[in-house]
C-alpha cells in the first residue's frame, strides 16, 4: 500500500492503455539480438524482487525473475490486464468454498544455479513467500499476504524474533513451515486462505511473491552480496552491476523459451545507465542514442511538441492512479467547518477539474474523475454526485452551500503542496478555482521528500489543523481487481490509525459492501459492488477527486514490438526487439 505523488509512481498497476499511434510493429519480422539501452535518473529501489516497491522496478523483475501469475504484454488493455499463468500452468479456480488454491507448476523451468541449471520446484515458491517476512527487509505489500494466507501471520510473528543475519534467516525459513502453504509434490503448490478473496490471484502477480532459490538464503536479502550472487529464473540475469552507475543484464543460460510463454527475450543484453537528468534522457531517446527511459515521464513541454508532431513513439499509459484533495475533518480551524458535510460538498463544487487536466497536458494524458477509483479498476464507473458543465466546477452552488453552512463571506483554508514538478502548478490552479467560490487557500510549499512522510501523515499536524486540505495521489498495487488496495488503506478505520487514512474516515455501510465485494467471485459482481462503495464514500465527500492521469512514455526509433507490461507501466523489455 503506497501513497504516491502524482509524478512519483510507487505502487504497481496498469489499466487502460492509450496510444497516440500504434506502429505496425507486430506485423514485422522479429529480430533477435542487440543491446537494449535504458536510461535512468536513479537506482532501482531494490534488485531483490522480494522487496521491490516502485512501479518501474516491476520491469526489472520481469526480466530477472518470474511469478506464479503474470500478464501478457499487450497494447490491448483487456489482454494486458488479464491474469494468466506464468510459473503456474494456468490460473486455477479456487476450491473449498473459495479458500484453497492449487497451482500446477510449469515443467522445465530452470534456475541458473552456480552448480549448473537446476529445476525450479514448488519448495522454491514456498520459500519465496516465506522470505517476504524476514526481519531484515520486508515488502510494502506483506500485509496483504499475512492477512489472507492461513497461518502466515503467526509464521511472521515468529520470524520477527529472529536475528537479522543470513544464517539465522536461513535456519528459520528451512525449519519452520506456514500451515496454509504446502507442496504435495515438486510440481504442485497449495495455498489455503483464512477468508475468501477474489483478488488473491492478482497478489501473486506481484514481484514480491517471486520464488527464491535455496542459494538466496546464503545472503541477507538485497544485500550487495545477494546482488553479486544473484540466481535468476527469468530470461536474463545480472551481468555487471555498479551502484548508481550501471546495471547490465545478460542472457540467463538456464532459461529456455518453451517454459516461458510470456517472455520472448529478443534482445541479447539490457543495459541500464543511471544518474541522468530528465532532459538529457529525452534528448538521447530522440536522437536514438538510447532506447527506453527507466523512471521518468515525458516532461509536459516536450510532450506537447511530440503530440503535435503526431510522433508515434509517444505512448500514454495509465497506472490506475488518481489525484485528489484529501480533507482533514479533524481540523478545528474555522470552528471545525470541515466536519460539516455541506462545506465539504462546497469544495467538490468549487474545484475546476478541467483546468487541472489542462495543466497536466490536456485530455491526451489526463481526465477528470469523480470517484475514488482510477480508470481501469473494477469498480470505476462514470458517475458524478456533484456535477458541473465540463467538470469546470460550479462556484455559485459552492457559495450557496457555504452560506447555508454559516460561511456567507467565504472561508480560509490551509493547503500544503508538494514542491515538485507539476504539483506546484496544480496547487496554484486549485487555489485559483477555489477563489471563485470565495474559498481562500493559504498555500505552504513542502519539500518533496517530507510531504507524505513527515508533513501529511504526522498525527500532530492532523489534530492541530496544521493543514485543512491537501492534494495527494494514490496508485493501486496491482491491476484490474485492485479496488481493495485503494479502499482499505485510505477509507477504513477500525480503531487503529492508518497512515494514509489521514483523518480516520470510516463508513460502516461502505465497509460492509466492500467486504461483499472482496468475497465476490465474478468480475461483474465485484465491479458492481465496488461501484456502490465508491458512491457511498463520495456521498460523505471525504476527498475531492481531481484527475486520473496517464504516464507519457517515449522510446527510440529502434524499439519495435513495444507492448505494454501492465505492472511496469512500460513497454515489456523482454518482448521488444531492436532494428538499428
Amino acid at each position, binding site marked *: 500500500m503506497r501513497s504516491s505523488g502524482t509524478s512519483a509512481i510507487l505502487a504497481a498497476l496498469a489499466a487502460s492503455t492509450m496510444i497516440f499511434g500504434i506502429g505496425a510493429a507486430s506485423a514485422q519480422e522479429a529480430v533477435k539480438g542487440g543491446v537494449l539501452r535504458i536510461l535512468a535518473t536513479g537506482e532501482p529501489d531494490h534488485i531483490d524482487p522480494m522487496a521491490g516497491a516502485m512501479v518501474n522496478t516491476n520491469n526489472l523483475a520481469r526480466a530477472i525473475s518470474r511469478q506464479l501469475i503474470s500478464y501478457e504484454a499487450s497494447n490491448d488493455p483487456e489482454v494486458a490486464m488479464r491474469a494468466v499463468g506464468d510459473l503456474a500452468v494456468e490460473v486455477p479456480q479456487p476450491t473449498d468454498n473459495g479458500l484453497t488454491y492449487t497451482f500446477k507448476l510449469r515443467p522445465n523451468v530452470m534456475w541458473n544455479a552456480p552448480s549448473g541449471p537446476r529445476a525450479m520446484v514448488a519448495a522454491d515458491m514456498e520459500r519465496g513467500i516465506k522470505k517476504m517476512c524476514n526481519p531484515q527487509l520486508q515488502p510494502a505489500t506483506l500485509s496483504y499476504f499475512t492477512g489472507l494466507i492461513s497461518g502466515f501471520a503467526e509464521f511472521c510473528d515468529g520470524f520477527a524474533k529472529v536475528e537479522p543475519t543470513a544464517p539465522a534467516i536461513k535456519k528459520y525459513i528451512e525449519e519452520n513451515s506456514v500451515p496454509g502453504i504446502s507442496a504435495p509434490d515438486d510440481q504442485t503448490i497449495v495455498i489455503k486462505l483464512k477468508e475468501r478473496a477474489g483478488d488473491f490471484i492478482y497478489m501473486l502477480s506481484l514481484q514480491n511473491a517471486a520464488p527464491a532459490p535455496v542459494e538466496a538464503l546464503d545472503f541477507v536479502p538485497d544485500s550487495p552480496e545477494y546482488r553479486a550472487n544473484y540466481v535468476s529464473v527469468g530470461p536474463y540475469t545480472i551481468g555487471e552491476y555498479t551502484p548508481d552507475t550501471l546495471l547490465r543484464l545478460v542472457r540467463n543460460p538456464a532459461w529456455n523459451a518453451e517454459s516461458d510463454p510470456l517472455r520472448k527475450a529478443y534482445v541479447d543484453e539490457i543495459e541500464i545507465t543511471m544518474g541522468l537528468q*530528465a*532532459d538529457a534522457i*529525452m534528448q538521447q531517446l530522440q536522437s536514438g542514442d538510447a532506447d527506453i527511459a527507466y523512471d521518468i515521464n515525458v*516532461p*509536459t*513541454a*516536450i*510532450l*506537447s*511538441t511530440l*503530440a503535435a508532431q503526431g510522433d508515434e513513439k509517444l505512448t500514454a499509459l495509465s497506472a490506475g492512479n488518481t489525484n485528489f484533495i484529501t480533507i482533514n475533518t479533524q481540523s478545528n480551524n474555522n470552528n471545525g467547518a470541515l466536519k460539516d458535510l455541506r462545506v465539504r460538498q462546497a469544495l467538490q463544487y468549487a474545484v475546476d477539474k478541467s*483546468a487541472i487536466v*489542462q*495543466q*497536466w*497536458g*490536456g*485530455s*491526451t494524458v489526463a481526465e477528470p474523475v469523480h470517484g475514488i477509483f482510477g480508470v481501469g479498476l473494477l469498480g470505476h464507473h462514470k458517475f458524478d454526485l456533484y456535477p458541473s458543465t465540463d467538470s469546470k466546477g460550479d462556484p455559485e452552488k459552492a457559495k450557496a452551500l457555504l452560506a447555508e453552512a454559516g460561511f456567507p463571506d467565504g472561508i480560509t483554508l490551509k493547503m500544503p503542496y508538494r*514542491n515538485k*514538478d*507539476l504539483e*506546484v*502548478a496544480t*496547487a*496554484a*490552479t486549485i*487555489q*485559483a478555482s477555489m477563489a471563485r467560490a470565495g474559498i481562500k487557500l493559504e*498555500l*505552504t*510549499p*513542502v*519539500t518533496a521528500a*517530507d510531504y507524505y512522510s513527515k508533513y501529511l501523515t504526522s498525527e500532530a499536524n492532523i489534530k492541530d489543523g496544521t493543514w485543512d486540505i491537501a492534494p495527494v495521489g494514490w496508485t493501486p498495487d496491482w491491476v484490474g481487481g485492485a479496488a481493495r488496495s485503494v479502499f482499505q488503506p485510505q477509507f477504513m478505520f477500525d480503531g487503529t490509525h492508518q497512515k494514509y487514512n489521514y483523518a480516520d474516515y470510516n463508513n460502516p455501510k461502505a465497509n460492509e459492501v466492500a467486504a461483499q465485494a472482496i468475497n465476490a467471485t465474478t468480475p461483474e459482481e465485484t465491479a458492481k459492488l465496488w461501484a456502490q462503495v465508491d458512491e457511498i464514500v463520495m456521498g460523505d465527500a471525504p476527498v475531492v477527486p481531481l484527475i486520473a492521469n496517464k504516464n507519457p512514455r517515449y522510446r527510440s526509433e529502434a524499439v519495435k514490438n513495444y507492448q505494454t507490461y501492465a505492472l511496469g507501466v512500460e513497454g515489456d523489455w523482454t518482448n521488444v526487439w531492436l532494428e538499428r
Partner: protein
Amino acid sequence: MSETAVEETDVVQRGALDLTLRRLRRDRASMMALGIIVCVILLAVLAPWIATLTGHSPIEQFRETGMTPAGIPVGPNAEFWLGTDQLGRDVLVRLAYGARISLLVGVLASLAASLVAIVVGLTAGYFGGLVDIILSRVIDLVMSVPFLLCALALVSALGPSILLSVAVIVFFSWAPMARVIRGQVISLSRQEFVQASRALGAGPLSIMVVDILPNLAVPIIVYTTMQIPSSIVFEATLSFLGMGIVPPTPSWGGMLADASSNSLYLIAWWMVFVPGLALLMTTLAFNILGDGLRDALDPKSSRMARNLKRQKKAASKP
C-alpha cells in the same frame, strides 16, 4: 566627509554633495545604471496601472486565451505583450509586480543589514577588548555558516513568507560590512578629534554617533548600495527553490523557477528571458551604481587615483 572641500577657483565654491554629484554625473556608466534603476522603480510603482491597462491581474489565470488546450503557455502577442506563464498568467503584469517584491526585499533587507552592521561594527570597534573579541567571533561565525543550506532549513521549519525571507537575508549579509566598519572605527577612534571630544567630556554614545559615524558615511553608502543586488539575488534564489515568496505572489526568482519546471523553457523562451533579463539588468545596474558612488564619494579610491596619476603623467610628458 566631515571637512568641506573648498576649491580655490575664480568664482564658484562647491559643497561636498555638489562635488560628488558632479563626479557621478561625469561617469556615463553610473548614469545609465541609474536610468535602469529608475525604470525598474517606475515599473514597480506603475504595476497596478499596467494591470489596469492590460486588464490582467497578476494572479488571474487565462485558461482560454493564455494557454493551449494542452496546457502550454502562449508567446508574446497583442493580448499578452510578454507572453503568459505555465498557468496562463500575464508575464508583463507579473514582472511589474515582481519588481515590487524584488525592490522591497532588496532595499529593506539591505537597510536592515546595514543597520545591524553599523551597530555591531561600531560597538566592537569602539569598545575593543572582550566586547570586540566576542562580536568579532560572532561575525566569523555568521560568515562561516553556509547560506543556502541554513536558509532552506529555516524556511522549511518556519514556513516561507516575505518577512522571513528578509530576516534570513539580513542575517546572512550584515557580517562583511560589520567587519569593515569595525576596522574603520578602530583606526578612527585613535585619531585626535576623538580624543579631543573625549577630553571635552563627551560620552561613548555621543562620540560614536556624533564624531565617528559621519566619517563612515562612504563605506556605509557604498556597501548598502552593493548589498541591494545581492539581496535581490538572495530573494530570487530562495523563490527559485520554492522557499521564498509564497505563490501566487509574483517574484522574479519564482518566475524563473516556473520556467525551469517541466522543461517549459525549451518551448517558452519568454518565461526565462523576461524575468532573467530583468534580474540581470537590475543587479548589474545596482552594482555599477555602487562602483560609481564609491568613486564619486571617495576621490582617493583606487580608480580615481589611477585616473589622476594618468592625467599627471600625461601632463608631465610633453
